[in-house]
């Protein structure tokens, strides 16, 4: 036989041996050796005969040993993941329990510490299990990794099999956590497109799930090869993975929340790209490295899966980039001048307010009037007012046409005579107060707008005065005293805007609108049926013009609101003691303490962008951009809770402005009729003698330059003025508001 020099030659020679080729015989010493070995190994003559009862005794012995083994070992050996095989034995189990206890204790002490310790222990625990696996435990060591497929495997492959999936889970948790943060950041940037945000959220959720599934599937398959498909085995396996994922996510949330806060703000898209890419590569590695220990997963399949994983990653990256550039950068970056101007304006106003010394017992210097339902002497030198029974009228709409409210009002009005008597006694004080230059009735801290406990009750008391004045006007009109009615109406209109004039927050504006709405309710009736003279009509018109909500009021209020919310969120984000007592920490669910700072940063930025963009639009008082409750992205939890319903506020401003303009038109038309004997055929005829210019219908959803005028039809002795807009529905009214005769506010 030729000396086999190389491997190929020897392989051919070996094959000939296995084919039992005759040419192999008598070839040489080495051939003889191998044939000798074959003969020795095949020779059964040397093997002792088995006793006749071997089967029985062997079976009994095996069953005995099986029954004698500890139940935990039996359970874990057959049903649990291989990793836990070692943990199920004696000290290992205790160690695992101790480890869990340590993690729990750390978590109680500090969440961040839990994150760090958890991550370290996670890797340590896996290494410990790996080392433990090889130790003898009384039973023979396990026959390789997968009994029915792979053999032999290098230690490198074994390491990959256990460590790579664990790292994959850990990194997947990190990726999920960072994506969560990135989503918050992105939701800020794209705040203008709420529907797109929901889609974006769903898209990312699906991406994460798909990526994780693709990355883990081969690993899970490999494990299943080892542990069978019995329900307890798969259940335990899934619980095991679920547990790791949960722990890893918790840990990484804490760690990455600290690490990436600044980077995420500035490079959210870049971060997401990297993360998704890393996850894709990780999926590939996991698949590739673990496929060698699987029977059914080939390299081709691994490549296919990883390609799919990467494709999804790139799709998501493309989607994010597309959104990013389509929606532009943040409004803060896009309109830096406007942003700075708005913030400067509010800061200047707030500085003025805060400069008032505390020596005034915490009340503002501008206070000249003080409303309290239970006067506490010594709070200051303002004008005090006892509301008494009138305060019960504060929180209802006395002019509502809703049957339930009307029923409630009937009961309430039974107490009106008593309240009226007390109110009439206080009326001179209200007249006196209105002569003062400023009003305020709220503590300094509350001027920032969020101490609802003290702020809202005061506003409600303001409203009760409007109710009282409107009721007095209604009564005077019904009892044939139009002059008295006009006096109360003018007083009510003045009260509506002057009571809050030093408060420029959104809630201040809203209460002003509420008061104006109450004060203006009886006006149409009094004008059309009260036989008012021209000067009375003129004074009413002047009062309406003064009470009208300015076009920029909402814009200004929102700038204040933005500033204050920004300030609050920043303070909360910095975890510093807050100077402004808008919202106490008790109001914030404990859940927010667990959120990474970057999430709150994202909330803050989202709010700024969203509201600033709206405030810009409010200059033209276009239709609210978003209707309904879904205006706040569900991912921005904090904003969702604390940000006011600004779409409704916008609708309220638009409708009240429209109503005041319509009432002024009604007054002008009535004055025209008094002079000309009938209503004009066209609204143009009242300009400029009865009205300086014709108003646009602010309630219209169109932007300011394109807003139409009111619809007007005249029949000589009657007329109809109509305002049509879907915006009315946002404030619970019909989309068609009619003034004049035969309308909802008919003078008939």
């Amino acid at each position, binding site marked *: 036989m030729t000396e086999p020099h190389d491997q190929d030659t020897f392989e051919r020679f070996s094959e000939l041996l296995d084919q039992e080729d005759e040419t192999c015989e008598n070839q040489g010493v080495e051939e003889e050796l*191998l*044939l000798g070995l*074959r003969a020795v190994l095949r020779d059964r003559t040397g093997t*002792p005969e088995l006793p006749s009862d071997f089967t029985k005794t062997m079976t009994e012995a095996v069953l005995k040993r099986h029954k004698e083994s500890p*139940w935990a070992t039996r359970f874990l050996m*057959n049903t649990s993941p291989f990793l836990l095989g070692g943990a199920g034995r004696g000290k290992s189990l205790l160690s695992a329990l101790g480890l869990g206890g340590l993690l729990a204790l750390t978590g109680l002490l500090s969440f961040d510490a839990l994150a760090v310790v958890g991550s370290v222990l996670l890797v340590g625990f896996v290494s410990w299990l790996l080392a433990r696996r090889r130790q003898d435990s009384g039973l023979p060591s396990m026959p390789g990794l997968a009994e*029915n497929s792979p053999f032999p495997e290098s230690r490198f492959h074994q390491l990959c099999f256990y460590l790579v999936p664990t790292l994959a889970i850990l990194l997947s948790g990190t990726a999920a956590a960072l994506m969560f943060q990135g989503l918050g950041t992105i939701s800020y940037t794209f705040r203008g497109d709420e529907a797109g945000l929901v889609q974006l959220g769903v898209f990312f959720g699906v991406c994460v799930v798909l990526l994780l599934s693709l990355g883990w599937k081969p690993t899970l398959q490999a494990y299943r090869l080892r542990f069978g498909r019995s329900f*307890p085995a798969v259940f335990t396996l899934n619980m095991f993975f679920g547990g790791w994922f949960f722990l890893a996510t918790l840990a990484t949330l804490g760690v990455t929340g600290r690490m990436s806060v600044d980077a995420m703000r500035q490079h959210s898209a870049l971060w997401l790209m990297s993360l998704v890419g890393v996850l894709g590569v990780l999926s590939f590695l996991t698949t590739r490295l673990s496929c060698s220990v699987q029977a059914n997963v080939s390299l081709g399949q691994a490549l296919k899966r990883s390609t799919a994983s990467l494709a999804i990653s790139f799709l998501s990256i493309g989607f994010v980039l597309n959104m990013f550039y389509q929606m532009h950068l943040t409004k803060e970056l896009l309109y830096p001048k406007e942003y700075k101007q708005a913030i400067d304006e509010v800061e200047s106003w707030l500085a003025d307010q805060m400069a008032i010394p505390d020596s005034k017992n915490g009340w503002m210097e501008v206070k000249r009037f003080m409303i309290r339902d239970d006067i506490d002497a010594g709070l200051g030198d303002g004008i005090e007012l006892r509301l008494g029974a009138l305060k019960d009228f504060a929180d209802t709409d006395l002019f509502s046409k809703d049957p339930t409210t009307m029923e409630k009002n009937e009961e309430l009005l039974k107490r009106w005579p008593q309240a009226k008597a007390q109110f009439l006694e206080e009326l001179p004080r209200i007249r006196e107060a209105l002569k003062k230059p400023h009003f305020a009735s709220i503590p300094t801290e509350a001027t920032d707008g969020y101490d609802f406990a003290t702020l809202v009750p005061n506003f409600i008391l303001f409203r009760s005065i409007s109710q009282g004045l409107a009721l007095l006007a209604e009564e005077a009109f019904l009892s044939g005293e139009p002059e008295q009615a006009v006096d109360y109406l003018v007083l009510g209109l003045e009260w509506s805007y002057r009571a809050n004039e030093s408060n420029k927050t959104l809630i201040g504006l809203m209460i002003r609108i509420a008061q104006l709405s109450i004060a203006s309710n009886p006006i149409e009736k009094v004008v059309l049926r009260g036989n008012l003279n021209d000067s009375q009509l003129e004074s009413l018109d002047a009062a309406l013009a003064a009470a009208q909500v300015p076009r920029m009021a909402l814009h200004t209020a929102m700038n204040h609101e933005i500033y204050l919310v920004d300030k609050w969120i920043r303070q909360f984000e910095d975890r510093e003691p807050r100077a402004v007592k808008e919202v106490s920490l008790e109001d914030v669910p404990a859940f927010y303490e667990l959120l990474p700072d970057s999430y709150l940063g994202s909330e803050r930025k989202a709010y700024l962008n969203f509201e600033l963009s709206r405030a810009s639009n409010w200059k033209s008082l276009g239709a609210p951009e978003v209707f309904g409750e879904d205006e706040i992205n569900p991912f921005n939890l904090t904003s969702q809770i604390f940000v006011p319903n600004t779409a409704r506020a916008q609708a309220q401003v638009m409708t009240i402005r429209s109503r005041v303009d319509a009432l002024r038109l009604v007054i002008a038309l009535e004055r025209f009729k008094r002079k000309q004997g009938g209503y004009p055929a066209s609204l143009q005829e009242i300009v400029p003698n009865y009205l300086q210019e014709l108003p646009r219908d602010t309630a219209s959803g169109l932007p300011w330059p394109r807003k139409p005028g009111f619809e007007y039809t005249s029949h000589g002795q009657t007329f109809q003025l109509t305002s049509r807009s879907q915006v009315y529905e946002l404030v619970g009214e019909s989309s068609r508001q009619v003034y004049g005769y035969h309308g909802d506010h008919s003078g008939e």
Partner: protein
Amino acid sequence: MYQAVLSLTTDAKHSPETVSSSNTLEEIAVALKTGDSKALEALVSKTEKACFHLAYSLLRDRELSRDALQDAYLIVFQRAGQLREPKALKSWLFRIVTHCCHDIRKKRGFELEADVEEKEEAARPPVGVKPEADPARRVADQNRLRQVFGQLPEIDRTALALREICSMSYEEMSRTLGVPLGTVRSRLAKARKRFISVYKGEKS
């Protein structure tokens, strides 16, 4: 609940249809997955000779071979649920036997010696080996061959054992080892080459 799960998965049970040695290995494997003790008996009855021969070839000790078989059957019984393909039972069992033998050798930590019976039997010339003039020399050669075989790494011993003792084809070995056919060929060749070099080294 734990106990209930345990009883479902690990306690020995009897399936409604009794399995015996007349059943095929696949049928026995299916029954074993349910924890049927009769299936275990059938498996032992059907495979004991081949397994014992394999173990004895590797250990050259009757009692130790018994122990290895007991360990192997226990593992098969306890982990039958993990066996995905019933067809693979035979190759899986052989592989476990090989591993158990290896564990026993490792635990013992010393070279195994052929027992007395084997020494007596070894006096007869094995098939395929040129008869030596001196019977004592012939026995010594056979022992040396076994000794060198025992010194090979596990990977080599397993490959040679599956081929020469269990008479497995390349395809069967490929399934058992979970490696491609080409790898089986090269692994056998390497094992033989190493056997030769170790033998020669020992001689020198």
